[in-house]
């Protein structure tokens, strides 16, 4: 006799009056890392709670409540990024990025400052509040759109096609932006985190 298949019970949403207390700070930190602006992050969290309230009947219970809300917030953040990308032409954007990359190298293509010998140890860095704080500050030094594209790729692990579709840019535009972001972030983390440790 075949064992009866046990279905995982569907997750039920908690009382909406507890959402702010339960998920408020988590969602706020999630948004803050991605938009780097307190006021904007607060507004996005508020919109997320309201959207969750409207859509709670369609919650299928297949994921945890927090995961579901994070998914809503993620879409709100992408909508915000999309608006930012509409404001400047893509050609102008790519020229800016290429000029910044050039600043890292001399005329023959050698780095003006050579990367030093350090390797992040995932387990120690991952649980360091200061590391994430430094990363947020370093992201804040990047131009907004570069930081946003980098965030979608590296923190949210979205694929090139998906990012390009959302932001209306070409893969080449995106790769140039990511290259610039990595050069700057690596240098910033080296100066402000790894050299100090």
């Amino acid at each position, binding site marked *: 006799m075949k064992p009866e298949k046990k279905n995982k019970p569907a997750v039920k949403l908690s009382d909406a009056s507890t959402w*702010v207390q339960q998920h408020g*700070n988590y969602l706020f930190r999630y948004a803050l890392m991605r938009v780097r602006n307190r006021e904007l992050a607060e507004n996005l969290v508020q919109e997320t709670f309201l959207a969750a309230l409207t859509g709670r009947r369609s919650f299928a219970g297949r994921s945890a409540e927090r995961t579901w809300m994070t998914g809503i917030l993620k879409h709100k953040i992408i909508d915000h990024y999309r608006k930012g990308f509409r404001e400047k032409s893509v050609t102008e954007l790519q020229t800016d990025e290429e000029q910044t990359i050039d600043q890292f190298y001399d005329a023959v*293509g050698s780095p003006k400052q050579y990367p030093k010998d*350090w390797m992040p140890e*995932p387990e120690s860095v991952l649980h360091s509040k200061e590391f994430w704080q430094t990363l947020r500050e370093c992201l804040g030094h990047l131009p907004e759109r570069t930081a946003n594209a980098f965030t979608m790729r590296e923190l949210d692990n979205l694929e090139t096609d998906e990012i390009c579709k959302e932001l209306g840019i070409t893969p080449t535009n995106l790769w140039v932006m990511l290259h610039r972001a990595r050069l700057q972030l690596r240098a910033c983390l080296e100066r402000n985190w790894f050299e100090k440790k």
Partner: protein
Amino acid sequence: MTTLSNWEEETKVPLRTSCKQAAQLVNLSLERKLTVREFVTMKIHLWTCKTCTFYKNQISALRKIFLRHEEALENIPPSEDEKLSECSKTRMQELIEKNR
């Protein structure tokens, strides 16, 4: 006999690429599969350039750490500037009550 210089000519792979071009290839390798020519160019540069190897290892390691950001959010308690202000919490709470 195939020498390095005629191999370079035959395959059109520039054996000596700058750190700037090598860094572009390292970045590209994180985004898509490199062509054989790109891959060989990058590898040859990395074999001989210690600092570009540091660069490659660092950005690859950082990528793995960034991907675990949500795990870090769950495990590290928020600092004061990462918390919603009481005023915002109250406002959100009221809005939820109003729209229920």
